């Protein structure tokens, strides 16, 4: 019952936001970001309605033993629960930024070309171009999450493939791959990313490549160690005896069995890549202005530190809260899913 009441309140808020944007401001389908926001809000409305009117929807998932066990373990961890709620809000902000941001993040206010402190009109104050910092921080969320996720995805793709090959084939292949990964890791990853950006140039795609190909060692070592454990199990021998190809064994048997550890590592890595992307943007080598990203805003904010500290504090807090949520969620998931200890 409590769940239904809360969902109904959320549904009313969501419908009000959509009414304001779709009907009053006529912001539905004009640009790509509005399309994303519209689709996302339709999804949210459908989800909330399903929860309210068809509460037995998730019963089959809930009856799953593994899910129940994980859920029970996860519920014990207060930090993990807070992090999950925080991350839901952060994702919501990222998708809905064009609907909930009070101002445009790029619009320069010529009547107020000076920074002004936080007020009722501008919750987080404005920057030196009169742009609303609250809106910019909201829009920065999507950049941080988008680049963080794509970089970790690339990182996982490469690292897991290398780890699978090394662990499964063993012997010389293993030695060569792991030695190469180790040498690759001998360059501190921010320096390696810096070198890649120096060669490829600045820009969002190059930033994703630079952060995505560095630090492969985490994923490949973890995958390799899991493969080495699973490889000896009977069901792999059975699959081999039935004539499964190596690729089928790797992707149908070994990968699904290692997925929970990989999810934990991935969650922790997202926090790190958000930090690295923010750092590179802060140095002026990542996201370029005027695109609102937290690192770039901090870079600008440092120049006005004495007169306008709010220009630095709010983007900084956004980074801390997001990374902290990913770290806490990763820790909680590790306790819930994964008995193996990660680094």
């Amino acid at each position, binding site marked *: 019952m409590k769940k239904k009441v809360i969902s109904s309140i959320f549904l009313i808020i969501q419908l009000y936001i959509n009414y304001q944007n779709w009907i009053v401001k006529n912001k539905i389908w004009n640009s790509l970001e509005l399309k994303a926001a519209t689709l996302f809000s339709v999804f949210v409305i459908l989800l909330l309605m399903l929860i309210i009117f068809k509460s037995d929807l998730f019963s089959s998932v809930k009856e799953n033993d593994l899910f129940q066990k994980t859920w029970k373990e996860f519920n014990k961890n207060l930090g993990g629960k807070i992090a999950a709620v925080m991350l839901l809000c952060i994702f919501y902000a990222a998708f809905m930024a064009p609907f909930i941001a009070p101002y445009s993040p790029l619009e320069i206010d010529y009547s107020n070309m000076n920074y002004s402190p936080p007020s009722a009109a501008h919750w987080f104050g404005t920057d030196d171009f009169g742009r609303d910092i609250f809106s910019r921080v909201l829009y920065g969320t999507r950049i941080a999450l988008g680049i963080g996720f794509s970089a970790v995805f690339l990182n996982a793709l490469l690292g897991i493939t290398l780890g699978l090959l090394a662990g499964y084939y063993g012997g010389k292949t293993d030695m060569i791959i792991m030695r190469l990964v180790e040498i690759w890791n*001998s360059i501190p990853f921010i320096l390696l990313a810096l070198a890649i950006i*120096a060669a490829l140039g600045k820009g969002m795609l190059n930033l994703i490549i630079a952060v995505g190909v560095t630090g492969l060692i985490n994923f490949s070592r973890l995958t390799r160690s899991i493969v080495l454990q699973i490889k000896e199990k009977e069901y792999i021998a059975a699959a081999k005896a039935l004539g499964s190809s190596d690729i089928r064994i790797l992707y149908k048997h070994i990968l699904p069995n290692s997925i929970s550890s990989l999810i934990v590592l991935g969650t922790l890595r997202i926090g790190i890549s958000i930090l690295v992307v923010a750092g590179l943007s802060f140095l002026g080598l990542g996201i370029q202005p005027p695109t609102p990203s937290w690192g770039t805003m901090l870079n600008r904010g440092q120049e006005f530190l004495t007169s306008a500290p709010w220009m630095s504090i709010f983007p900084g807090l956004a980074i801390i809260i997001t990374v902290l949520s990913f770290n806490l969620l990763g820790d909680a998931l590790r306790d819930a899913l994964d008995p193996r200890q990660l680094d």
Partner: protein
Amino acid sequence: MFAYIIKRLLWIIPVLIGVSLILFGIMQLVPGDPASIMLGTNITPEAVKALNAKFGFNEPFHIRYFLMLKNFLNGELESIYYKDQVINIIGNRLYATIELGTLSLIIAVIIAIPTGVIAAVKKNSVFDLISMFIATIGISVPAFFTGIIFIYLFSVYFKIFPSSGYGGPFWTAEGISHLILPAFALSTVMIASTSRLTRSAMLDIMKEDYLVTARSKGVKEKTVILKHAFRNALIPIITNIGNQLAMMFGGAILIESVFAWPGVGRLAVKAVEFRDQPLVFGSILILSFIYVLVNLLVDLLYGFINPKITYN
């Protein structure tokens, strides 16, 4: 033990070659003609020809690589922006980076390990809860933001320390006052992660039977904690410090930029900004070499503390 040290020392050779090959390989991705990029604005056909002869830009990859390394070590590799030998520019700034890195490592170890040990011994006490809460936030704070906050608090608001720049060697009053803020800012991430790890490593060890045995023999509690538990907890702690060094080297670049610290990290960032490829290559190569050497030291220390490694 001896075999381990030799093995570890020999492994450094392929690593250093590999690191320089990777960086050189990445530099090959730069679009455009390398000779004209290096010459910048004062480009003449003769100068292009001379550079092509010196660096062998028309030769195959391995010859170019050896010529680049040779010229770098000879001091013939020149920066485009500073118009000076790359190795000289780096040499002049290396000291500041080493000073900053060493001090923050010392600060991190001095603060983090006692905090972790006390938190583990007094588990669930107020000290434990508060310090671990701060440490959990500490691992999520970007180093440069800590730096900005420190500047705001200690330079702008309280006016205790200067906000940026280099004041001289650390034994002078001016030098140490400039060094303290960046060193503390750089060490925060290391303090947070090491104290968390020290606590969990100590808690794991304190469940072991041999501590009960030691206590039942009447060994003093202080000796039990420091000699029996802490010595064994050091193994994971040192591994973690080794893992965190990469983050710290990256953080050094950011901290040097925030505090306008004249080190190699800031030089590397400037080189990327000015598209000064020779300087990018040189500074990142030197920083990576230092990182590899520090890691070697950590590994040797690890072998020294963990006698089990001899049997492998």
